[in-house]
Structure formats: C-alpha cells, structure tokens
C-alpha cells in the first residue's frame, strides 16, 4: 500500500485516537507534562496504527445521540430487571436460547452490537459464528430487543436500516 493511500486512510483514525489519548493524558497527568505527553501520544498513535490497524468509522451525530440515550436507559433497565429477578424469592427466569442471523456488516457495527447485547435487559451474547449470533435470554423472547438494538446500531453508523438490506 502506498504511503499516500495509507495516510489518507489512517489520518481520520489517527486524529480520533490522538484526541481521546489527549483526554486520557489530561486525566492521568492532571494537565502537566505535556512536553512528554505530546510526543508520547504521537508515538502511541503510530504504534497503535501499526499494531492494531483500525479504520475510522463515520458516526451519525443524531444516531449517536439516540444510541447513547437508548444504551444508558436500557442498561439501567437491564440492571434493574436482573436485580429484581435475583432478589425475587421465586427466581423467575424464562430461559431461552436463540440463534439469530445478524444483518449488520462485519466490523465496528457488529462489535458494538455484540458488546451491547449483554448489557440490555434479559439478553446475553453467547456465540458469534460467521453471521449467526447465539443469544441466551432470561426474560422471554429476546428477538424483539435485538432487532431494535440492531436498528439503533445501524442508525449510529449511518447504515441503511437492517430490515431494508438484502
């Protein structure tokens, strides 16, 4: 791959990582030591791109807002739900295991999907083999929840709605 093509592909990712790392440095060093922190961030960005290449994924601003709101409210609800079941004297669990064909493309979208499922009410990601996602549910039908989540993730990355895709 030519240097120029790499530069244009990696630059957005490099900027995002550098900005996040600057925040981390600010948190760790409490605003001091930028003479070391600056070059360190640069070196870390270069090493990261070398060790673990990532591509910047454009996020949809409105989708991001909606996703964050959805994620926070649902994970709070998920925590409450499972806490209620754990503390309930009769331990009400509706155990079910399902396999679902994931419509989202491989990459960050799928990572966010699988990473989020386990925090939502009643669902737990158990396996991902090619496009087949195994989900373990304790609150009845996990399908509806996951389809809704999939749509939110699609919105987050500005992807066409999962249902409309071939």
């Amino acid at each position, binding site marked *: 791959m030519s240097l120029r093509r790499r530069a244009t592909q990696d630059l957005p990712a490099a900027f995002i*990582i550098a900005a*996040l*790392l600057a925040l*981390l*440095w600010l948190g*760790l*060093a409490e605003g001091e*030591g930028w003479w*070391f*922190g600056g070059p*360190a*961030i640069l*070196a*870390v*960005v270069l*090493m*990261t791109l*070398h*060790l*673990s*290449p*990532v591509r910047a994924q454009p996020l949809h601003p409105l989708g991001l807002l909606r996703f964050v709101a959805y994620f926070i409210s649902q994970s709070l609800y998920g925590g409450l739900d499972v806490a209620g079941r754990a503390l309930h004297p009769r331990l009400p669990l509706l155990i079910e295991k399902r396999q679902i064909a994931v419509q989202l493309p491989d990459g*960050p979208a799928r*990572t966010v999907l*699988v*990473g989020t499922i386990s925090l939502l009410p009643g669902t737990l990601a158990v396996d*991902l*083999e090619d496009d087949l996602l195994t989900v373990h549910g304790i609150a009845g039908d996990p399908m509806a929840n996951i389809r809704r989540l999939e749509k939110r993730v699609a919105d987050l990355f500005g992807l066409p709605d999962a249902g409309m895709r071939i």
Partner: protein
Amino acid sequence: MPVSDLLASGFDVLLCIGLLWLAWQAITGTGLFRSVVMFMVFGLMMAVTWARLGSPDLALAEAAIGAGITGALLLNACRAAVSEMRSDEQPLRDRPSGVPKWLALPLSLAAGVGLAWLMHSIPRDGGPTPEAAIKAAETHFLDNPITSVLLDFRAIDTLLEMAVLLLALVGARVLLDQRRLPALYPVPDHPMPMLPSLLAMITPVLLLTGLYLFWAGSHAPGGAFQAGALLGALGVMYQLAGRFTPTHEPGTVNALLITVGLGLFSLFACLSLLWAPAPLSHPEQGAYALVLLIEFALMLSIAATLVLLFVGSRSLQLRRSTNHPGGRQ
C-alpha cells in the same frame, strides 16, 4: 470519628482474613486450575491491601503484575504440566548448545568473585542510616522517594534484579529445550470474535498509561517496573490473540530489547567509576536525563522479557492479519 475507625478496622480485618483464606486455598486446593484462580484473586486483594496501607507504588506494581501477567504465566505452567504427561509431541527444538559446558564453571566463579569483591567494597560502618536516607530523599533530584531508592541509594539491587529477570528467561529457555516441551500457546488458526476489537480498544490506552507511569516515576508513584509490567501484559494479550507469532530463530530486535536494560545499566555502573569512587553514582550534571534514559531501557527490557518468558520462544514476530504475514518484529 469512632465510626470511621470501626469501618477501617472492619475493612482491614476482612482483608486480612480474605488474604489468609485465599492463600490457604491457593496452596491446598484440590485442582491446579482452581489454585490458579485463587492465586489471581489473591493478587487482586493484595493490590487493595497495598492501597489500604498507603503504598500506591506497590499497588500499581501488584495490579500490573498480579492482575495481568502472573495469571497468564501460571496458566501456561498448568498447561505445560499437563502436556508433559503425554510425551508424543514434537520437541520445539533439539540442538546442542553452541557454548561448551566447561565454560560455565569459570564464568560462574568469576561472577561470584566479582560479586564478593563488590560486597566487600561496600563500606560497613558509617553507612547511611534510615533517617539519613529519608533526609537525602527529600533533597534528591528525583521527587519520588521510591524511584530515588531504586535508582540511586540501592541501585545495585535494581541492577541485580534485572540480571535475575534475564536469568529467569534464560533458565526457562534452557528448560524448554531440555524437557522438549511443546510450543506453548500455539497461534490459533481460527480468529476469536470480539478479540480484535478488544485489542484495538485497549492497545492505545495501555501504551499511553505505560508511558505515563514511566514519566510519572520520577516524581509520583510509577516507574520502570510498573510500566514494563503493563507493556508486558499488553504483549501477552497480543500473543494470546495470536497476533505475535513465536519464531525459532533468535531475532535481533528481540535480543536487543531483552538486554538493553541490563546492558545500559551495567554500562552506566562502569562509566560512573570515571567520576565517582564507587560504581552507580550519579554525575553532578544531567542526572535526571540519565535516569530517564536508564528507566526507559529498563521498561523496554522488563516488558520484552516478561512477554518472551510467557511465550517461551526465542523471539516474536508481529502478524498484522491472517493474510498479511511478515511485518516488523
């Protein structure tokens, strides 16, 4: 006031009981695997204990080593112990060593005599008392007393610790060759879902935190050991994810990385005889820069040694993706 004292005592007592119980379980457990889990939990509790005792330096080190590396190393040992039971596996390497055996005796004798001479040359009476050391630490050019002890007052200990770490690696290599243990943690063919994302997320954060600990070491809790252990843990993670390929040929970069810390430190010990009567004394000027350089080299060596100790191979190669072999070390 009494309430907070009561809570503090309760916390400490529970911590003590927990530590003793975990240690007992780790030693007397019926299964190796359970013992490893117990030992890892023991490490976590130990870090909380150091935090409670007001030793953040040790808490950082325990967190980096106990939570990251020790568990992985013990699991590896577990695996080696099991695979030794079936002996039908191919040896990793079967080659007589190039160094003649008779050299070992004079070499170790020479090292012993050298050490004895060094011990003899340390002044026995009139040495620094703890009070004097604490006083000296207050006016030291390094603001973190721990680092100033490690790199100035007791620099010889640190130097020998580096030698011990290198020896551990060499010992492990010899053992692996002689016992014909299989390559540990072979690179898996099938990629694990979510693992690449985890790596991409954790790599920059761990790298920068490691560099922060290295930078902070001169004036705040941190330093080469914590930073090195953290970077080593990252290396172990890459190996577990199959991103490092163990190779049989010794690599130049690997060899350089594992020796640079001890090498630079020893070089400094020799050179310091030029400006001071005893080895390992810091010069009047440029001491801070010198300490940073040595610390950096120590960090690299600690990280590389820990990773190679875990993998048990001669060197490692980075593999970008499955259809993209090669790449830098």
